[in-house]
């Protein structure tokens, strides 16, 4: 069960990372493909592509940062709970002995 959860979480993180790179591509695509000349007035297609690209980079980056932060917090809480449980067990064992 834990393996399945880890695998799906890995896939989910990979898709968010892919979204981030898609955003980067959209930001630079007008100049990379060449339908926007450097120095010329920006067309509607360029404006749309750049705004959507910037938004995707921002939100997918924010998602990755928040997701990582909450995952770290959960891991820290789980580790603390394990340490406390181990300490209680050790205490009980010493009392018994």
């Amino acid at each position, binding site marked *: 069960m834990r393996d399945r959860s880890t695998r*799906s*979480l890995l896939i989910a993180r990979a898709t968010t990372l892919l979204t981030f790179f898609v955003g980067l591509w959209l930001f630079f*695509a007008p100049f990379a493909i060449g339908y926007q000349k450097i120095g010329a007035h920006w067309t509607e297609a*360029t404006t*749309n592509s750049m705004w959507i690209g910037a938004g995707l980079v921002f*939100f997918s980056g924010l998602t990755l940062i928040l997701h990582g932060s909450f995952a770290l917090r959960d891991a820290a809480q789980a580790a603390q709970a394990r340490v406390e449980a181990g300490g209680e067990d050790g205490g009980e064992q010493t009392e018994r002995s």
Partner: protein
Amino acid sequence: MTKHVVGMVGAVLGFLGGLWLILAPFAQGYQPSGASWADATVNDFWVGIGLALVSLIGFAAYALSLREEMIARGILERRERKEEAAPEPQPQEQAAYAGNASIEQAIVPLLNEMLKDMQRQHQQEERENRPNNDTPYHQQEQYGRSSDNA
């Protein structure tokens, strides 16, 4: 669990962005209808489709991992357990017992009323058999005994 919800929200935003990219060339008018597609349209359309698909997969993956964590914490139950429990005969028997109990609950008050009715009829018949005597038989017996005691 918050991390999964954050990921799901991000995936939804990505999906909406992908949908907009597919529609944008026609909605904003930089792709005239009927004309061959410009480079910008081709790029936006295919990137939009890819983004929407990737976001859907991401949403499903975040939702799946959220479900697994909820199962691990005991908030949700795994569906296989219910499917395994279904073919066992116990629930049917319990349902049959429950059905019998409900029938009994419905019949018992009826039977009580019928018994009371029968008792009333019996008492009336006794009274009709002794029309001249005002005091009932069992009271006469009580009086007789009390006089004997006195």
